Structure formats: C-alpha cells, structure tokens
C-alpha cells in the first residue's frame, strides 16, 4: 500500500461518554485510515450507535478527543462535522417526507459540502447518487411512498451526496434477507471503490460483515475488547466467550474459510 492510502482520517483518543451514572463509552481508541472498511460490532447496548453519534457531533464526549484529518472535531455541531467530510447513515432512516426523493438527496448536495455546486449541476449530482444506489427512475416520488429498503437507499444517497471522506453506516442490514444483504454488501464495496470513501460500519449481523471488512473492532459495555482482522477476531477467545457466546465458533469457522480463500 502507498503511504497516502495509509493516512489516518479519523482518530478517537480515550473517548468517554456517560449518560448520568451509566458509562456508555469507556476510553475508546479507534483509527480509521483513508479508504478502509472497518466493521464495528458488539452486542446490544455496547455503545456502537453512541460512538457514531459522538463522531458525527450529535453527542459531545465527556472526555477524550475525536480528530478528523488531524483536526479536533469534538465540540463542533453536527452540520459542521458533515461539511468536514463525515457522512452518516442512520439505522432507521429519517427522511424529509414533504420532499421528493431527488430533493432529499439535493439537500445533501446543497448543504453538506463546503462549496455547493450551482443549481443545474446540483440536480445532476443528486441524480448521479440516486443511480449509484439503484434508485434511478424514482427521483420524483414522494419518499412517503417508498418501502423501508428504498428509504434506506435514499438516506445512503443523501449521505453520499455530501461528498464524505468517511461514511458512518449504522446497522444497514437489520431485517434483511440473505439475498438483500448480499446486495448491500456489494453496494458498500462499490461505494468504497468508486468514491474512495472510508466506511465505519456498525453491524449486528456478523455474517454480513466478516467476509467484507478489512478490520473489525469489537465493543462491549462501552469498551473496545478486541481489534484486528476478521480472522483474528474470529479466533479471539475473549470475543467468542464474552460476546458471541457458545455455538458461534462454527459460524465463524465457516467465514474464516471464506475469508482465507479470497
């Protein structure tokens, strides 16, 4: 790999977040390099979404630093973080129901960039991202008419329209069939390759992640308990015992074979 692709985009240093007396994140350290695809896994309540909220500026950490491209970003409001180049896809898409599909994406084009393009170009850009996620031909529909999967794709297109260098994806796969999961996995890979976007991908569904990501970070009770390649994580006894539970070894074994052969 060239030194440039090794460049660190995001660095979380000792990030701690409490909700009242409850420690949700405890001294979390995390690095995301340019163009990398990192999976963030952990059981329910491990603090995965909270970590994404802290990075995207929706929550402020109680202590620790969040740096993006060497710049301290905790304390910045969410809209400023977006403009610096961190896009966010929510677990449950929250679109603008009074706007059309294209207008939803257009909002990202016009407000999520530091230098928004002129009108004609902005509209073209919006359609470009709708095509990328496979929603061409739907651009004039009201988002209320879309099904949940399509709404997720609109949300993804809107996040991409802000031209992020890093995309935070939150449980894209929940409630999907295996075929649909495969489609999303392919889509995320394509986004990374075509746009060079780094992706921090929170996921509950292990199968979806292990064959795709470069690196896995495991969060449990707000702390990072393991970090490494999918194969390493699959062998980590701490992860297997504390998080995956018994019986998961077989599932992982199958995926290790898959990851090893590719």
């Amino acid at each position, binding site marked *: 790999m060239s030194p440039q692709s090794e460049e660190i985009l995001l660095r979380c240093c000792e990030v701690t977040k409490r909700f009242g007396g409850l420690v949700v994140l405890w001294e979390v350290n995390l690095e995301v390099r340019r163009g990398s695809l990192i999976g963030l896994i952990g059981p329910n309540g491990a603090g995965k979404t909270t970590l994404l909220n802290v990075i*995207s500026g*929706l929550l402020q950490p109680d202590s620790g630093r969040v740096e993006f491209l060497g710049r301290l970003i905790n304390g910045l*409001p*969410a*809209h*400023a973080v*977006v*403009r610096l180049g961190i896009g*966010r896809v*929510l677990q449950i898409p*929250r*679109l*603008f*129901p*009074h*706007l*059309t599909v*294209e*207008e939803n994406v*257009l*909002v*990202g084009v*016009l*407000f*999520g*960039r530091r230098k*928004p393009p*002129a*009108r*004609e170009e*902005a*509209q073209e850009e919006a359609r470009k991202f709708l095509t990328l996620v496979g929603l061409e031909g739907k*651009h*004039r529909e009201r988002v209320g008419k879309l099904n949940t999967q399509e709404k997720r794709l609109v949300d993804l297109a*809107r*996040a991409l329209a*802000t031209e992020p260098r890093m995309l935070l994806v939150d449980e894209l796969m929940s409630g999907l069939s295996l075929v649909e999961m495969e489609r999303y996995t392919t889509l995320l890979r394509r986004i990374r390759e075509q746009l060079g976007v780094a992706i921090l991908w929170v996921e509950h569904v292990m199968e979806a992640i292990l064959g795709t990501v470069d690196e896995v970070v495991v969060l449990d009770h707000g702390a990072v308990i393991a970090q490494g390649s999918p194969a390493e994580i699959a062998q980590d006894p701490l992860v297997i015992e504390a998080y995956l539970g018994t019986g998961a070894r077989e599932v992982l074994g199958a995926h290790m074979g898959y990851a090893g052969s590719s």
Partner: protein
Amino acid sequence: MNARPVLSHMLPVLGTGIALAAVPLFVRESGYVLRIATFLLMLATYAVGFNLLFGHTRQLFLCIGVLAGTGAYGSVLLVRNAGLNPVAAIAVAVAIATGLGAFLSYVGVRRGFGVLFVGIVTLAVSLIFQNLVLGLRKYTNGETGIVTQGLGVGLAENPVQAYYILLAVLVAALAVYQEIMGSRHGLALHALSDDEVSAELSGIDVARYKVGVAALAAGFISLVGALFADWNGFISPSLFSVGHVDIPVLIVLLLGGMRTLLGPVVGAIVFTIVDAIVRPFGQLTVLAYGVLLVALFLVFREGTVTLLQRGWEMVQSSTQRGQVGRGVAADEDGDPLSQRTNSRAKSPY
C-alpha cells in the same frame, strides 16, 4: 438560472397585492368596512410571521402579541417619554422586538426545547408581558392604556392611507417569504421542519435558520404592532393578550394553510368573515374560537389553500389522463421542484 423569468414566482404576491389594493375603492363610503379590512391586513401579516415560525421551523411562538406589543408600546413610549420622532421610534421598537424574537428562539435552540416546550415558555413570556405592562403603570397607565393620538405617523387620521401602508407591509412580508422559499434556504426550511436531526446530518445549520427566521418574523410582527398602535389611536395590554392576538393568528394560519404563501391571507379573509358573523354573541365568540381551533387541529390541519391545490391537481391529472401522450411528454421536461407551486417556487434557488 439566467433563463428563469426573474419575477414569475412573485406573480401570486403581486396578484394578491393588486386584488387587496382595490378594496378601498369599493368601500370608500363605509369607514367600518375599511377598518375591518385594515385589521385583516394586519392579521394576515402576523400570520405570515407565524407561518415562518411555526410552519417552517416548528417554533410554536405563543407570544405574537408580545412581539406586536413590544412594537406598539416601544414606539409609543419612545415618542412620549423619550421625545424621539415617530419613524425613529418605530425603527428602534422593531429592532428591540427583533432582538427579543431572536433571543427567545436562541434559548429554545440552545436548551433543545421541543415544539410544546417552546409553546409553554413563550406562553409564560406572554403572561410576563401582561404583568410587566400592568406593573409599569407609571409609564404605561396599566389597564387604562394610552391614547396614541399625535404620537405616531398619523395613520388614525387618514384611514385610506393607513390601509395602503399596511397593505405595503403585507406585500413586503409575502415577497420576502416567497423569495426565501424560492432560494436554497427554502429547501433548508422545508427539510428542517420535516426532521431536524436529518437536516443537521445533511449539513444544515438548524440553529442559525431557526434564530434567523424568528428574528425576521419578529421584525414584521412588531412593525405591524407599532403601526396598529398609531392606527387604532389607543393601546392597552389586553389588546396584545394571547386571546386577542395569538389565538386568532393560530386559527388564521390553520384555516388558510401552513407552509403556504397565501394561506395567511386566505385564512385572514375567512376568519374576518366568521368573526363578523359571531361578533354579536359577545363573550361566546371566545367559545366559538375554542371550538373552531379544536376542530381545525382535528380535521383540517392542512388548510384551505392546500385543499384547493389538491383539488386543482386532481382536476389537472384527470385531464392529463385524457391525453396521455402529450401529458407524459410535457411531464418529462418539467422541473421536479416546480411540482408544488404554492410555497415552493420554481427552482431550488
């Protein structure tokens, strides 16, 4: 952008202005009707401000009366007690009210108040204002009020001129509204009124929009309040109470249609007619307003303008279905952003 006829999106504003400008020609001999028509203009302008606040930024300001009253009492007291000339006094009072509106909005944004909490806090501000005016009896004469004759620009002496000045303010407010909605800021306001978190995550500075809109709305509302003080010849705190200003404005906006350009005007016309009918019942009008408001919230949240528009769209689509080939071809060319014509102008800019 250069191909766009610059003033096409202002046609509804101009049309409304011209239609309302004709009113004094028909009612010249009746001072009473002109008075009601002038009041209608003020109500409509309040509602334009409230539409920006509540319709577009979800800020339920139940202190429209306070903002108007700040314009009214501010301008009158500055002339009477500080010796300012009336125009300067109005300007200072409007500036104060603009600051107040921005401040209230800023507090709400900073503290993360939801819609209802903003409503409660601003309602409390209304109560404080009433007590403040009563308490500062030395300056305000308390409930007795102030006779404003000779303290303003002379609107009371010249009702026709007053009508046109207030019409100019309404048209200006509508034009500003339309200009904002036709720009990219309009798209931002539509987005943030749908979902503030998503708007923020799309790069929209929600706080700045909310505070900016509150300042703008407060400016127009207080200007009308100051002109009202002069035109009415008399001010007292109860004229700016929630029951006298905020409730009617809320009804006007719901009746006419939130998030629309002409909703405030249509609502003000309907409300004025209804008000004229129920007026003979005295105190019962309050009951009528209450029932009306509940009914509106339950079954008619979209308003007259939206309803008419739906009807029009249905008529159009049924005629289009009659001539499929042409209809579709014309459709493909169309700018998707111009599909809704009322509050959305022809382009995202």
